[in-house]
């Protein structure tokens, strides 16, 4: 005999939540999760990204740590420079679905690496750094360590705003006495204290990563790109300076302390001016403070925001005017461009042909007088 099926109230709530969004095409696939484009049922113009966390074959112990962390921290952190978690629901097959805001313009890494087609200047770097710093500051102000800051995790919204994403390695600040793992943060962006195996650290670890991103924005290539931990340490020693008891008391007693035998003294600001001078003396000053070897001496996120660099010229570019990735978006833009732009005459420096050609075009009034 047919029986009416019913849902538990909590299942109903989940169902209601799920119904709010309509899932569309797959945007990306990974071992950890699949991401789909979607939109709000009520307002189809509100686009979302639905991240469906896959059941992990390798991880046999239920919900994966990344999923738990993302869920926990994204839900509590609300900030314009941190990716928004709009909703959570479970799918029929008991998989977790995170509904995130849709960030269509790729990530900062794409912009940095596309050297040929994307140009940006000091004002742009300042704008991006401002957004990143605010995101990190907000995390720390809420006592959360991100522990995976890198250009790849800085996504760009349609209006140009940069948002920190991927909280899969995040955790709350530890209470004194509680040990944390040192095996976090992607190697190129990992601070020396973690490379040396410190089990008690703080926001300074994230700040180091921010400094690495800063450097990468300027030179448009990863600043310290080691293939192994040992190599990473030696790169730090070479380009920043060797950590010693003089510049970092206690460092030699960290569990995994090991440095190349040739001791390089810590470089002063002047040494960075050559390579990073594009952001000005103030910018370099800020950069140098983020890569202080001793985490106690490293600048904090709050102090970063209070640094004078943000107030000197050039001003941070407005987000609408920030450079965008070439490719997809550029196509539509180009289409529009071909239609307009017949009034501008180039400076005399240009060849006379184009100058003449444009003028001739302008003279041709079909309707006109």
């Amino acid at each position, binding site marked *: *005999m*047919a*029986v*009416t*099926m*019913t849902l*538990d*109230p*909590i*299942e109903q*709530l*989940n169902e209601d939540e*799920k*119904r709010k969004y*309509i*899932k*569309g*095409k*797959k945007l990306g*696939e990974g071992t950890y999760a*699949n991401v*789909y484009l979607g939109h709000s*049922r009520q307002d189809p113009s509100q686009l979302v990204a639905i991240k*469906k966390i*896959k*059941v992990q074959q390798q991880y*046999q*112990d*239920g*919900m994966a*740590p990344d999923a*738990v*962390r993302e*869920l*926990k*921290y994204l*839900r*509590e952190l*609300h900030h314009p420079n941190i990716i928004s978690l709009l909703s*959570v*629901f*479970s*799918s*029929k*097959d*008991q*998989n*977790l679905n995170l509904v995130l805001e849709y960030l269509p313009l790729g990530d900062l890494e794409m912009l940095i690496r596309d050297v040929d087609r994307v140009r940006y200047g000091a004002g742009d770097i300042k704008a991006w750094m401002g957004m990143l710093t605010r995101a990190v500051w907000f995390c720390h102000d809420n006592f959360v360590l991100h522990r995976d800051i890198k250009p790849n995790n800085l996504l760009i919204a349609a209006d140009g705003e940069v948002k920190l994403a991927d909280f899969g390695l995040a*955790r*709350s600040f530890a*209470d004194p006495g509680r040990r944390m793992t040192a095996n976090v943060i992607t190697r190129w962006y990992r601070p020396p204290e973690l490379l040396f195996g410190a089990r008690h650290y703080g926001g300074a670890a994230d700040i180091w990563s921010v400094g690495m991103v800063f450097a990468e924005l300027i030179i448009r290539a990863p600043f310290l790109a080691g293939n192994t931990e040992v190599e990473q340490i030696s790169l730090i020693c070479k380009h920043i300076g060797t950590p010693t008891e003089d510049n970092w008391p206690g460092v030699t007693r960290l569990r995994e302390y090991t440095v190349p035998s040739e001791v390089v003294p810590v470089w002063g600001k002047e040494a960075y001016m050559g390579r990073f001078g594009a952001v000005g003396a103030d910018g370099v000053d800020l950069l140098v403070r983020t890569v202080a070897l001793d985490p106690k001496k490293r600048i904090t996120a709050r102090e970063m925001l209070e640094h004078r660099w943000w107030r000197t010229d050039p001003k941070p570019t407005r987000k609408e005017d920030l450079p965008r990735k070439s490719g997809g978006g550029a196509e539509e833009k180009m289409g529009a461009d071909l239609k307009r732009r017949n009034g501008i005459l180039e400076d005399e420096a240009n060849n006379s042909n184009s100058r003449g050609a444009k003028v001739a075009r302008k003279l041709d009034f079909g309707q006109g007088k």
Partner: protein
Amino acid sequence: MATEDARYRQTSQYELWSFSPTQLADMREKTNAAARARIAERLSSLPALSNNTSTPASSVNTPDPDGASAPALPEFLTAAEEAQLVTFFTSELLRAGDHAEMTDEIKATAAAFFRRFYVTNSIMTYPPQEMLIVALFFGCKAEGSFVSISDFVKTFGKDNPEEVLAGEFLLCQGLRFAIDVKHPFRALRGALMELAALPDVDRARLGAAETRAREILRFSPLITDAYFHYTPSQIMLAALSLADRGLAERLITETFHHVTPPPDSGADTPSASGTDAPSSKKPTARSGEDKAQIIGCHLRDKVLGTIEACRDMLAKELPERREHWTNKAVIKAQITPLRKKLNKCRDPERWNLVELQRARRQQAAKKADSEDGDPDDRGEAGNSLQSDAAVFGDPLTASARDTKRRKVLSNGKGLDDPFGGPL
């Protein structure tokens, strides 16, 4: 409004899991009623109870002397009885956590999870003994401690990783995916720090108060509904008040005397009555910071009143009551009968978590039009689809569902008690 409060209001704990007592009671009532109705349906539709044509609605809670096997339905738990059992099992949960030597935060988070889960789910639907282990397991994860499931179950001398895993997602869903629980432990430290900075406080007194307050916090708020009705700050002060009333009151008075105006304007702070201009003469006492604003008395009193109410709630379940909840005589008299009753009115379909999860996964896999085309997903077939209905699944016919359901149940596991006799 105070900046601290504004921030607290943004937490999921406040948004999703804070209620007024009336609301909470209401929800429990409704959950109970819903569960009864549904279980009645399911029980009466089982093949074992064949020619039973009595409609589910009418037979709710009809007392039946014979019990489950007769065509009539069993006696269901009332909401009050459910609450009693939940409290008992919360105590069991804390004991298990103590036994496993978990941290205060993990135990507290697990207890909060457990209580939250049974607000919107009935204890008749999902087995509390299993769920408390699941809550402990998931509590570890939520607090950043990721243990392997096999190690975990070994701690409890058990051997059922599958069961725990089966309940994990269910628990997460029951929590509405809000897994960040804010506790009063660190707040207690903060309070002590503030008090210690006052000029004329006895250190020994502080130490004693902290010890007692902490002990209270480890038990009383978790066993009661305090987390639903009060903020961690209030709970902490209530516990401190129970430990040493004078200190708690001192702290509150200090706080509401010394309120620095927020940087933008002094108008925000609820200092309705007579505020001193921020630029007034420097006070002679202390450190020369501006103790400019004096909060209207009514706010301070309201805070005091709230803390007093919380204090009363906690006072009903002081740590000494741990003994009560493990007392064999008490258990035999109050808890065992309820558990017997529970055994008879369990939800036949949901009680076995492992089977439930398996069935759900199977069903999801069998659906021709699945949500996405991931061959990677366990058991999922199908390709990506655009249309709404297709994405979220067309309604299957009822009969198809029934057949599947009956297959699950006819395993025989549904009805029998897979957990052996009552404890």
